[in-house]
């Protein structure tokens, strides 16, 4: 988490017709998502990190090296980065192999260590059968996989991805997401991932930088930002939290898997790997309700004791509450969307012990690093 090892960035200045003014740092491991609505300056920040855009008043350091300050600006081609653009942007005059080799040969010629072998990357991204084809003969998803492979083979120490899924149709997106998860779990390269899609960010990111209108709203670990009821992401209809869990057991008779997370065990329908398998799960704020007494007679599988640790009024009629699981109130945090009527009728407030009734849990997939 120390900025000396990760990224420390400050960019300020006019870009087109708006002003960019961002300061943030990101850890040296895991996926940091730059998240915000379209046109908030995310891509410009990424281009500044890559050295493709030079903003007058900027400072950028990565792993203790200064890439930009008042006196210096390292041009893009000398920065040890990989960049995946929104559109695959393959070189039309080269085959898939030629595209993959373009950055690789230059990285090796400049003395960079070959940490990622050609065959390893081709295998990881399923490119083996495409090598002799030209970009014109690939599907959208295949093209983007080649673009990711090309960026990885440039032996980057920092991988930058600019909405790599947004130009794809749903099928291609579902095809690529598992590859991105494998990248995150198997390679020790820090990633800065630009996206305006919350589901994508929750699936991939460990760390979040929330942007709005050229500024940083908040930055921090994904779960910490998700469970802050005052941030704009808590106002989204699909607001919720992503939590790390591990498989703790199976109930074969009822076809359930028991997941252990910080402060509680959850039961989810279906079978999700052997005992000990790490998973990411998501609990949507509107899928949780609160009760002051444990209700014995309910069809809801998961009724967990918790403590209210914070709340914020979302509008005159709704309250977003944050509860921490476990009786001591130190476990994983959930967001709960409650009507103001219920909130006041039950006399809820911070510090109270309650029972969180969880109607649905989505298993997102592998847990990721960190």
């Amino acid at each position, binding site marked *: 988490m120390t900025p000396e090892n990760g990224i420390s960035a400050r960019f300020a200045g006019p870009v087109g017709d708006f002003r960019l003014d961002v300061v943030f740092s990101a850890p040296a491991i895991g996926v940091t998502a730059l998240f915000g609505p379209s046109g908030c300056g995310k891509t410009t920040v990424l281009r500044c990190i890559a*050295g493709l855009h030079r903003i007058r008043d900027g400072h950028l350091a990565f792993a203790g090296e200064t890439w930009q300050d008042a006196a210096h600006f390292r041009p893009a*081609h000398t920065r040890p980065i990989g960049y995946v653009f929104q*559109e695959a942007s393959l070189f039309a005059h080269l085959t898939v192999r030629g595209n993959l080799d373009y950055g690789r040969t*230059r990285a090796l010629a400049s003395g960079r260590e070959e940490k990622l072998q050609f065959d390893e990357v081709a295998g990881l991204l399923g490119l083996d059968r495409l090598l002799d084809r030209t*970009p014109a003969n690939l599907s959208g998803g295949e093209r983007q996989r080649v673009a990711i492979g090309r960026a990885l083979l*440039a032996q980057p120490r920092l991988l930058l991805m600019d909405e790599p899924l947004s130009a794809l149709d749903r099928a291609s997106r579902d095809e690529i997401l598992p590859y991105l998860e494998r990248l995150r779990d198997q390679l020790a390269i820090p990633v800065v991932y630009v996206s305006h899609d919350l589901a994508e960010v929750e699936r991939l990111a460990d760390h979040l930088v929330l942007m709005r209108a050229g500024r940083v709203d908040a930055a921090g670990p994904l779960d910490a930002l998700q469970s802050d009821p005052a941030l704009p992401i808590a106002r989204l209809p699909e607001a919720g939290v992503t939590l790390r869990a591990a498989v703790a057991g199976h109930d074969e008779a009822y076809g359930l898997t028991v997941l252990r997370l910080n402060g509680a065990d959850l039961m989810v329908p279906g079978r999700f790997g052997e005992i000990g398998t790490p998973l990411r799960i998501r609990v949507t704020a509107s899928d949780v309700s609160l009760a002051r007494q444990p209700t014995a007679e309910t069809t809801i599988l998961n009724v967990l004791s918790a403590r209210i640790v914070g709340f914020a009024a979302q509008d005159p009629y709704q309250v977003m509450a944050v509860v921490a699981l476990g009786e001591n109130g130190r476990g994983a945090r959930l967001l709960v969307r409650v009507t103001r009527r219920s909130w006041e009728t039950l006399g809820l407030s911070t510090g109270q012990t309650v029972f969180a009734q969880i109607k649905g849990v989505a298993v997102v997939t592998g847990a990721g690093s960190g």
Partner: protein
Amino acid sequence: MIWTPVLLTLKLAAVSTAVLLVLGTPLAWWLARSRVWWKEAVAALVALPLVLPPTVLGFYLLIALGPNGPGGVLAAAWGARSLAFTFAGLVIGSVVFSLPFVVQPIRNAFEAIGDRPLDVAATLGASPLDRFLTVAIPLARPGLLTAAVLGFAHTVGEFGVVLMIGGNIPGKTQVLSIAVLEMVETLQWRQAHLLAGGMVVFAFAVILAVSLIERRSREQRP
């Protein structure tokens, strides 16, 4: 001898095309990529031969290449008096005259590539020169091909400028178009027919080739 002007014309066109590509490609790159406001003034200067009468262009070239112009100073370096009425003078004249036909298609091709492939190449560790040679040039290949064909053909077809600065010296400056004029004036109709007919076939082949190149490059664009 009927072949002498034909060979001289082909030699002139080949040398001019080579010079045009070497000079025109960097110039087109600069016109396509630069953001200075006066680049359109340079572009207009390059395009002047499109509208100037060849005699006007030839007149100024004659002065420039003559003993008192910069061409004469240059010629003095290797002991000649003037570049006018020489093969070297013809090449210079042809290059100036055909420059817009070469620069325009290359510039269009470079502009059509856009920033993205060059940005990609930069993030993959390619220096500016590397990007130009390994990304811009290969992607602009149809434009370069069109430019070469047009430059060659336009040089073959020129008349006025050559007459002004080269005169009509058989074997030295008497190119095809001027040979036809002389044959007609001296009533050698059969030979005039041969040369003129050959030119028509050649011109047709060139125009067909250019449109085929352009169609292919359109089909290849993903």
